[in-house]
């Protein structure tokens, strides 16, 4: 179990607020943090990594104390065995991809680990290249491999996919999820993408102004009132078009736009940008194989 109890006064554009979190996480879980910018998500990750010192509190993992303000314990980041991937890649520019991985490796690491990560992350063709010759997606893939080369127990991902396009995001999500499972990591990821959160996480934490406003499975957190509709997705409302007696809503789900025809009363109070659930009975959709041409 990972115990995180931290208080920290944070400065934000809208005024100071207190990160005030009391959490117990199960090891091996995939946890996502969701919330408006400036709600303390990154500060929470940084406290866990040892890069930010809370004003008060206690952090422990499996009974081992990482931080305790009363006991004046503050374990340095390198001893916490935490891997960190940021939104902007932090690869060393003067080292190749392979060099970056080797540099991150700890003494006594299993001999085949780098090769294994190069295979897992499809870095074979990129291993001798320098970071500035890589695309955004390739850099993040290399950053993920470098974080894993440290053989962390906990993987912290701070919106690592935010700058990537839809297709690349989906691919990277697969790499993240398969590594999480393979290396039996406890993963904490900051994300603003509902589809991503629902796909990846066991537990979602909603942070608002430094406090946890909701926590549970993504379904519990986002679906609220559960319908018996099995054909259910979350998305972002893009547009409402009035077409005589019905209104057609365009909703972005993943990287696809779907349209929903609704009675005007059904879409009352909705405006573009709103997060919405699109649901239908499982009996309505048709399904067929896409024939290869």
């Amino acid at each position: 179990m990972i115990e995180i109890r931290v208080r920290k006064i944070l400065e934000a554009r809208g005024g100071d607020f207190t990160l005030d979190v009391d959490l117990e996480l199960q090891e091996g879980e995939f946890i996502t943090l969701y919330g408006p910018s400036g709600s303390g998500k990154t500060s929470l990750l940084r406290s866990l990594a040892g890069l930010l010192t809370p004003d008060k509190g206690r952090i422990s993992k499996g009974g081992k104390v990482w931080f305790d303000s009363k006991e004046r314990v503050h374990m340095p980041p390198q001893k916490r065995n935490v891997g960190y991937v940021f939104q902007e890649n932090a690869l060393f520019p003067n080292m190749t991809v392979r060099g970056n991985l080797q540099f991150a490796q700890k003494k006594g690491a299993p001999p085949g680990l780098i090769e294994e990560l190069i295979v897992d992350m499809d870095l074979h063709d990129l291993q001798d290249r320098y970071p500035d010759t890589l695309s955004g997606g390739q850099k993040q893939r290399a950053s993920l491999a470098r974080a894993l080369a440290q053989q962390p127990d906990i993987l912290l991902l701070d919106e690592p996919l935010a700058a990537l396009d839809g297709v690349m995001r989906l691919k990277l999500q697969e790499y993240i999820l398969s590594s999480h499972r393979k290396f039996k990591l406890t993963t904490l990821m900051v994300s603003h993408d509902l589809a991503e959160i629902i796909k990846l996480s066991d537990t979602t934490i909603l942070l608002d102004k430094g406090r946890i406003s909701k926590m549970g499975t993504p379904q519990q957190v986002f679906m609220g009132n559960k319908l018996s509709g099995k054909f259910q997705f979350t998305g972002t409302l893009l547009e409402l078009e009035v077409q005589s007696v019905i209104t057609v809503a365009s909703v972005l789900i993943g990287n696809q736009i779907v349209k929903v025809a609704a009675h005007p009363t059904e879409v009352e109070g909705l405006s573009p940008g709103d997060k919405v659930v699109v649901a239908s009975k499982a009996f309505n959709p048709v399904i067929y194989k896409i024939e290869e041409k």
Partner: protein
Amino acid sequence: MNKFRGHISTIESDGGLSLVTVIVPVDMELRCIVIDTPDSAPYLAAGREVEVLFKETEVVIGLEGTDGISLSNQIPCVVESLETGVLLSSLDLKCPSGRIRSIISTRSAGELGLKPGTAVRAMIKLNEIMLSPI
């Protein structure tokens, strides 16, 4: 979305499917099928209060006295008002349990001669009805 509150009266399950009957006051019985059973969805229990939802576009209109139709849910109503578009029309129907909205083609509305006061039957297939626990 048409919404009513009622109580589950019976649940018949077979495999992973359940046929659920909901009684809505005053006098409406709605049947729906869901891919869930009392085991997978604990809210499926006799006596439980639920919300019953169905889209306006899934409500079929028949004139009174229409027989021999497979649709499980048939609710006697009276047309309260109708709003006519070029292709589609929106009907407000009154029944003892409240109001049901239906969107049908303007052509059908014309063929049936629907106008305020017409007695009709609102019909909904059982696979078009959603349940939501309260």
